[in-house]
Every structure is written in C-alpha cells, then in structure tokens.
C-alpha cells in the first residue's frame, strides 16, 4: 500500500487505518459522527494527499483544457479555480475535477485518487494538434484540507497569505508553518475551508501545526468515513458511485458545469442532442420514509419494477436521517415522488427530496 507523508502522524493520533485505492488511509479517529459534527460546527483536518495533480502547460494549454472539459476555463483569471469534468465523446465522465488557473499557459488539474493513472493517460492521450505538455506530479504533492467555520481562524496565524481576502474558489501561494504551499479556498464538505498543497518532501509541520493550533478550538482530525458523509450531505459527487463513464453530465444533474457557448469540446454534440430530446433518467436525492439505511448498490424500485441501484447512501449525522442519491426514470424525479429501496428482504419506502440535503448558512 502507498503511504502519504503524514502516515505516521495518523497512527500516532490513534487512527483506524484501511486500504483505499492502493493507499493506507485513516478511515476514522474518534468516530464518524463526532468527526462529521466537528467539521460542521468547528473544524476538521483531512489528509487528502492521495489525490492526483496533473499540469497542462504550453501555448495551447487553455485551448486544450477547453477541449477536454464542459465548463468555461477561459473565464478563469490566474488565481481562480473551477469545478469541471473530463468528458468522453458520449458526454459521460472520465472523472470530475478541479482546474486551477496558474497563468494562461499553466493549468493545474486536481483529480480523484481512484483515477489518477486513468486520468493522466486520458489527458496525455488527446494532445494531437495542441502544443501542450502534460505532466503527472501526483507523487510530488502532499495535500491537506482544513474545513469548517473555524478554518480561517485556525489557519491565519500559521500563514503569510491574507486569508480574509481569499474568496471561495480562489488560490494563493505562500508559507504555511514555514513550508511553501499553494492554498485554495475549496473543499469537499460544504463548509468554508482551505485545501493546502505542498511539494516539500517533509511537509509534516503543515499537519502538526494545524492540529496544534486547532485542537484547543475543537478541531479534530477527520478520516475517510466522515469525508463521505459530509460530501454526501452537500450532494458532492463521488466518481464510481454517482458519476461514471455510464452516466452523462446532464443525467447527473450537473448542467451548471456545461457552458455550450464557450466553443467545442469532447461530448458537446451528445449534450446538445440530450437537451433537444430530453432525459430518460436523472440523479435525485432521497430520504427514507421507513426505518433503515439505504446503501450503495441496494436495488431501487418504482412501482414493482427495479429501475436502478442506490449510488450513494448513508445515515446523515447532521440531519439525523437516512439520505441517498439514485438515478430514477425522468417521470419519477419530481420532489415528493415516492418509490422503494430494497433493504435486505424488505421494500423500504423512500421519497425524492430537494438537494443539497445540507447547505451552510453563510457563503463567502
């Protein structure tokens, strides 16, 4: 198993470690519910070094990023970040990702840990006709995420970057705990917070200084278990569960990342066709009416017929109810529509509800 540069620190904090896509990662420390609530009410620190980092550089860097993705990267000024996806010609997903504009000839793509090799091969494999260089720098990068209402308060004393001036989906370079880092106001929890990237071969001080500064304020280290419950409450996608190469960007309810007027891109003709013809199915959020917990792959029924399987599902620690995501036939996607999830041998009633399930009160 691969190990991040913070591996020993997790073990010292008593983390329960598991294997995740080839990495030894902490799944929980104190417990999923405590960790989840810490992020929602105070702050939490995640080791996300397993994520992938790919650079696209050169004269045609912007044009190439535009070709590979549905969102409009031309809108990004140096210092800005955008949520987008790598699209197949069928408008399905190779992955979802963040694109950072470093400068008009340098784009920094951050991709899911499960897909690093696949994504790099994809990005490097479509360059014909573009004057670009593609580099996989994933091994060089360590990354932590500090998330929660107290994130700025905890991080500011540790950095020379003026965090108060950093808006959501912007980034800056500077020192954190004396170590050179790129810091962005981004995250995967639905709370305010920062993601901190470093290529320093010895970045331990980034982790330990945040833990030291944050613990008296109620910060907890957070494992992958709570990472999943947090992102699901905020209806953030998980590749392999909610989006895949079998789901189109419109079916996934991600029309907002599609900017047709920006020019041509992989998958555009299929998106235009789906817009003209209408969708057959769509990803919706649901809660259970009967007692139980809906989990990934449980069968989903409309009427007596199985229509799909649960994509993501859990017991929401903040909302204290079972929630989930599933693709339903378009006729069953209206809010309030009741359907059923098969939980072991029981047909458990569910209903479509608005998403995101949780939205924080203030947004920077």
């Amino acid at each position: 198993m691969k190990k991040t540069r913070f591996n020993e620190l997790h073990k010292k904090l008593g983390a329960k470690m598991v294997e995740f896509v080839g990495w030894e990662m902490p799944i929980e420390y104190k417990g999923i519910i405590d960790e989840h609530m810490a992020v929602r009410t105070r702050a939490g620190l995640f080791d996300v070094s397993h994520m992938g980092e790919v650079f696209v550089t050169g004269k045609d860097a912007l044009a190439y990023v535009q070709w590979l993705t549905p969102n409009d990267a031309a809108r990004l000024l140096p210092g800005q970040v955008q949520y987008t996806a790598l699209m197949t010609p069928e408008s399905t997903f190779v992955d979802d990702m963040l694109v950072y504009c470093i400068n008009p000839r340098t784009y920094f793509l951050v991709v899911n840990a499960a897909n690093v090799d696949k994504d790099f091969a994809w990005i490097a494999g479509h360059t014909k006709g573009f004057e670009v260089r593609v580099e996989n720098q994933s091994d060089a990068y360590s990354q932590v995420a500090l998330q929660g209402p107290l994130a700025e308060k905890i991080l500011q004393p540790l950095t020379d970057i003026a965090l108060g001036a950093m808006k959501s989906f912007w980034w800056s370079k500077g020192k954190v705990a004396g170590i050179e880092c790129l810091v962005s106001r981004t995250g995967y929890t639905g709370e305010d917070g920062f993601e901190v990237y470093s290529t320093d071969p010895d970045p331990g001080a980034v982790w330990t200084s945040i833990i030291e500064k944050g613990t008296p304020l109620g910060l907890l280290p957070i494992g992958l278990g709570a990472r999943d419950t947090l992102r699901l409450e905020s209806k953030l996608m998980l590749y392999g569960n909610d989006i895949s190469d079998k789901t189109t960007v419109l079916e996934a309810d991600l029309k907002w990342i599609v900017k047709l007027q920006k020019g041509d891109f992989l998958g555009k003709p299929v998106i235009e066709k789906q817009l003209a013809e209408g969708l057959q199915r769509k990803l919706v959020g649901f809660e259970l009416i009967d007692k139980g917990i809906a989990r990934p792959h449980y069968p989903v029924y409309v009427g007596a017929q199985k229509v799909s399987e649960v994509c993501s599902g859990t017991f929401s620690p903040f909302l204290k109810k079972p929630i989930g995501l599933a693709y339903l036939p378009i006729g069953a996607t209206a809010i309030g529509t009741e359907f059923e999830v098969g939980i072991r041998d029981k047909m458990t009633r569910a209903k479509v509800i608005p998403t995101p399930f949780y939205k924080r009160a203030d947004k920077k």
Partner: protein
Amino acid sequence: MYPSDFYYTKDHEWIKVEGNEGLVGITDFAQHQLGDIIFVELPQVGAELAAHQSIGVVESVKSVSDVYSPVAGKIVAVNDGLSQTADLLNKDPHGRGWIVRLKIKDRKELEGLMKVSDYEKFLEGLES
C-alpha cells in the same frame, strides 16, 4: 473488562445465563468495530431460532452486521429501548445494550462457547 459470567462466540456475541433463559448481546470489541450504531433490527417475540441463526441486524453509519444467536432458543423479550436509543449498544454493550432474552433450548450448547479467558485470548489473537 469482559464479564466473567458470560459465554462468548467467535462472532463477538455474548450470552448471560439466568436460570433457563439467556440474555444476548454483542461485545465491546464488536461495538467498537462497528462504529456509531444508528439502527437495530430486532426479531419478533416468540421467534424460534437455531444456534448461529441471525437474531437481527445492527447498522452503523458505515456498515451492516448480522447478530447471531449463540444457542438455539425461543425469543421471550427484545430490548425495545434500542429502537429509541441504538447507541446504547455502543455505550453499554454488556449491560443496557442487551438485544434479546431467549429461553434456552439445550443447555449443552453452552459448552461449545468460550468462557471469558478464552474470549480475551481470542481477541489478542485477532489484534496481532
């Protein structure tokens, strides 16, 4: 930490014998492995079970686990408190977190279960 008057199974259930009945639950090791327990599916009172048949299901945020009956018997009571406060299983797995009370069918089946020192040795073996 493990009560000396309980019998234990390899699936981390315990049974406390009281006359010809037994109180059944899961051990502290099991509740720790499961994490925060949200929901317990209990059997019907009156159900007759064989040894190692599923009594019910314990759901935590991240997992689902069957609870198996240590011995054959008839369910005479279930812990309704668990439907209100499932986390009793985390907080007091050997006491207020009991799951069912059953009338033991054949006391000889108890001889196949572990006593406390064997269970503690079994746990040590797992952790290495």
